[in-house]
């Protein structure tokens, strides 16, 4: 009887591990498949022979896109927006989180500012007024259209603010007694103590900037200003969707489509995320948990 029970327990335990492994595999399989297609022979991919391992391994697709100036141009637009936008996000986040992390007794207008920020987070005029504003400001086709509307990452500000609040008050008090002003406290005490939270918000803003496509689509009039995600949206996703919608096109499309080339563009489109992912996932859970500590 006892033996029987332990046997069934072991069976259930075993199936739990199998199930978890299966779920994990399903999360990764579509991504592995795309990487495999991108390194496969064109004909093998078109014949549907590729699953999770390249068939007829070659890097032809990658040499093609490395010579594609539109693709490379878009790649650099994305790199530029990540740098410029990331730096702006970082400065704004730090500068806003610190005063907002002070008690209302210390900073009188703290709650008014906070309400203002919450209102901008909860209500928006929608995409059309912003579109018209950007046109009047003459920001179409400039990098500013990609970095300024998202310059204040409210979620990051709140996350860092909560982290700053978890730093013991005694530290601030001691600093102020020694004559340290707000700028000194922020630069020399709060920032050095907040590495995990700062890493988290920085990674979030890098990911957001890299992944955005819609602002590029509506604010950029000429193709050479498209960030990479917009380029992929227009020339891979949109093209493929148009071909779904008409049955007669499908046959023609089959002959013309270049699955391996599209797959390689998609792989490059997710590469930076995959590269920073190990850091991302190490920090973000830690950072979120720390940031969610409330008094």
């Amino acid at each position: 009887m006892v033996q029987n029970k332990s046997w069934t327990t072991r069976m259930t335990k075993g199936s739990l591990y199998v199930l978890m492994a299966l779920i994990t595999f399903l999360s990764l399989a579509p991504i592995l498949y795309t990487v495999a297609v991108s390194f496969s022979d064109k004909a093998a991919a078109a014949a549907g022979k590729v699953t999770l391992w390249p068939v007829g391994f070659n890097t032809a697709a990658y040499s093609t896109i490395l010579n594609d100036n539109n693709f490379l141009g878009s790649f650099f637009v994305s790199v530029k927006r990540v740098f410029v936008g990331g730096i702006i996000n970082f400065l704004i986040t730090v500068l806003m989180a610190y005063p907002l992390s002070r008690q209302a007794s210390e900073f009188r207008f703290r709650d008014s500012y906070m309400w203002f920020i919450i209102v901008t987070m909860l209500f928006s005029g929608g995409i059309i007024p912003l579109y018209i504003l950007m046109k009047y400001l003459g920001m179409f086709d400039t990098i500013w259209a990609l970095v300024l509307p998202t310059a204040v990452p409210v979620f990051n500000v709140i996350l860092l603010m909560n982290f700053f609040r978890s730093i013991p008050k005694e530290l601030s008090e001691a600093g102020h007694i020694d004559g340290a002003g707000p700028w000194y406290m922020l630069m020399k005490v709060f920032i050095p103590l907040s590495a995990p939270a700062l890493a988290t918000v920085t990674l979030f803003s890098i990911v957001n900037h890299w992944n955005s496509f819609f602002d590029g689509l509506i604010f950029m009039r000429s193709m050479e200003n498209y960030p990479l995600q917009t380029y992929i949206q227009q020339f891979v996703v949109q093209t493929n969707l148009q071909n779904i919608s008409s049955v007669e096109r499908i046959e023609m499309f089959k002959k013309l489509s270049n699955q391996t080339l599209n797959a390689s563009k998609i792989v490059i489109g997710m590469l930076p995320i995959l590269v920073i992912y190990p850091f991302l996932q190490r920090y973000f859970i830690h950072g979120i948990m720390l940031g969610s500590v409330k008094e």
Partner: protein
Amino acid sequence: MKHSIFQKHYHMMLLPGMILLIVFSVIPMVGIVLAFQDFKMGLGITKSPWIGLENFKYMFEMKDSRSIFFNTINIAFWKIIANSVVPLIFAILLNEVRKVAFKRWVQTIVYLPHFLSWVILSGIIIDLLSLDGVVNNALQAFGMEPIMFLGSNSLFPVIVVSSDVWKEFGFNAIIYLAALTGINMTLYEAAEIDGASWLQKLKYVTLPGIAPTIVLLGTLSIGNILNAGFDQIFNLYNPLVYESGDIIDTYVYRVGIVQAQFGLATAVGLMKSVIGLILIVISYRLASRFANYRIF
């Protein structure tokens, strides 16, 4: 007050962010007056004719408006349900895994799709689901007819909801996993001594232990009932599935930005923002009353 000399420094720190919020959030909020105009780019806000509620009247009389509203709520509703239930089950099962290294591997991999954009994931999904894609090849191997997945109105909402669950279930499970680790281990030990089975422990210890988290997340999700997920649908839909997949946000984009009917699109967007705001306020109220939740 000893800190009064610091006040102006605090204001200065907030100044750049405030200016940016005023320009890119508050001015567009004022821009909702467009909803009451027949706005023309050349005439601008001051010279475009005021037409009262014409845009709203048109919106309610339009034949598509009911289906757009229904599609939005339909997709958002099933996403809310599936995105709560699947991560919850996954978290409970993962919590049973005792091998730490295995658990960490699983977590690392299932969180990954959350960080990839819908542009990338749609590109992959369209390829997998195309007529000569992997999924249809497999169906044909079993002797079935190929299915035009992304061209079918009955399948499109299902694909949208399930691919969203695929992308987000791991990430959404984080909060449940955190709540599960918060359950007092002695409760499990006591239950074991009393001879409780796995199901009994689930029913009497685990679920009551994370009930507050479930209630809180459920309440907060009320505010999302009009957010069907623009990025995803925009990258998966096509004219064949407008009937089942066109949502408020995609409609606003096509009418406003593609067709330049700015007044009408702003009216539709405004409608959504107002209903969304009311729902968020209600859900925060409920959350603060029943779960002691505070946003800041």
